[in-house]
């Protein structure tokens, strides 16, 4: 605890880095997963291939994946962000697809029959109706991303992982490890809560 009281700004700055890393990765990941899910929806074969691919990516240990990515993106936070984006794809995609599949086919037929085009159906019908399930996916991905982002400290991305790795390296600085672990948990908790509230709001509207 002493560490926190002596260096509140250090911990706060690392937490800020962690938050930013997670948030930007999640935003980019969602921006990729949403259109991808929409495009592969109703194409069973393509869906199987895409889900299989990201499923395999998900099984690669995070340190190994980041090492693979260093030659492409350098030893910095970019590598870490790309890894986080790759990891969250499978979770996000599954939920985007589940959300789209959960829409009553009659609603889509009516939309088509009335002369809405593909984009109009996507924005005005599919997205709002699938949103609660998609948000649940983002929430799940957020928690996973917060956890994996700690590894980013090893690759120059900063974040709360710095405390954990420092604590380990300085043989027995349990205070740093405790504060690091607790802060990561807190960030994950905040994400989860915030998105849960949003999700409830959206579901209520439906």
């Amino acid at each position, binding site marked *: 605890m002493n560490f926190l009281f002596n260096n509140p700004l250090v911990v706060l700055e690392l937490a800020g880095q962690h938050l930013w890393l997670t948030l930007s990765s999640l935003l980019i990941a969602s921006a990729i997963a949403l259109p991808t899910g929409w495009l592969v929806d109703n194409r069973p074969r393509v869906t199987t291939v895409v889900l299989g691919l990201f499923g395999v990516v998900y099984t690669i240990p995070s340190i190994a994946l980041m090492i693979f990515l260093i030659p492409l993106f350098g030893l910095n936070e970019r590598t870490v962000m790309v890894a986080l984006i790759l990891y969250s794809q499978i979770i996000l995609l599954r939920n985007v697809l589940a959300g789209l599949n959960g829409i009553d086919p009659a*609603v889509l*037929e009516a939309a088509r*029959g*009335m*002369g809405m085009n593909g984009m109009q159906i996507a924005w005005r019908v599919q997205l709002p109706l699938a949103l609660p399930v998609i948000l649940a996916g983002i929430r799940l991905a957020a928690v996973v991303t917060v956890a994996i982002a700690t590894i980013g400290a090893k690759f120059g991305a900063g974040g709360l992982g710095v405390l954990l790795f420092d604590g380990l390296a300085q043989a027995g600085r349990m205070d740093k490890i405790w504060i690091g672990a607790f802060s990561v948990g807190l960030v994950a908790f905040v994400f989860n809560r915030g998105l849960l509230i949003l999700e409830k709001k959206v579901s209520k*509207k439906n």
Partner: protein
Amino acid sequence: MSKILFEHVSKQYPGTKTPAVDDVSLEISEGSFVVLLGPSGCGKTSLLKMVNRLIEPTTGKISLNGEDIRSMAVTTLRRQIGYVIQQVGLFPHMTVAQNIAIVPELVKWPRGIIDARIDELLEMVQLPLDFRNRYPAQLSGGQQQRIGLARALAANPEVMLMDEPFGAIDAITRTSLQDQMVVLQQRLRKTILFVTHDVDEALKLADKVVILFRGRLVQNATPCDLLNRPANDFVSQLINSNDRIRQFSLLRVEMVMSNLPKGGALKDQPEVAVGSNLRQVLSAILRPGVDAVTIVDGDLAVGQITFEALRQVGCEEPLE
């Protein structure tokens, strides 16, 4: 001029041996209410959905107002055709008003006109105006389909496609919706293509009934002709042409009434209102000393039905 014209239309789904629709040619005239009738799997829904191109025919041509429906953008085509389906398909995240406004918004009507139109349509389908801000989940099945009907009528299309619209609704509500549909059509004179497997519904609503069996057009006739001259045993069995009392309850007086004799209606004849069925006429005519009934539209006598005319309806033996 024919409003919708099918020319040798066939549809064969991949992986099936027999076509779902087999060389159907059919002319639908403007303002007529045409019911496609047949058992499930007879191709009636496939035929209907080809008009707004939710299904594309394998061969053949369909024209709307004399124009090949493939010559225009599919969204343009669909926006000028009202579409009602059995499962209704209201958008659950939109209010009743927003649901009704869909097509008018797509064709860019001004906001004020859309608003006025929503009120007009709610009145037309006999729902209170404060339903505007309700969500579909807050409505009963019958009310939902009324909104479905209002939504299809919203941009005032000339053609309506209705795919078993009352099939999933309880019997009492269904009857009242059918009655309203008759009244509505007398007022709006849309060209309606209506799919059902319910014979009573077909006879009650249709100007023309088109009977389909295994993808083929078996008979295209008025309800009266259908009862008088079923094309074959299948039709005869389907419409149960021997049970005349039941049929009478389905046929409207307009279908058999004749012009008033010179000098106007006889004074003592019982009066039956336009839109009534023949069964009501029968009850009136069976009173002692009555030979005919006068058909009235409000206070105005518009025609009459004699006992003899009633006897002619559906009396012939079906052709073998």
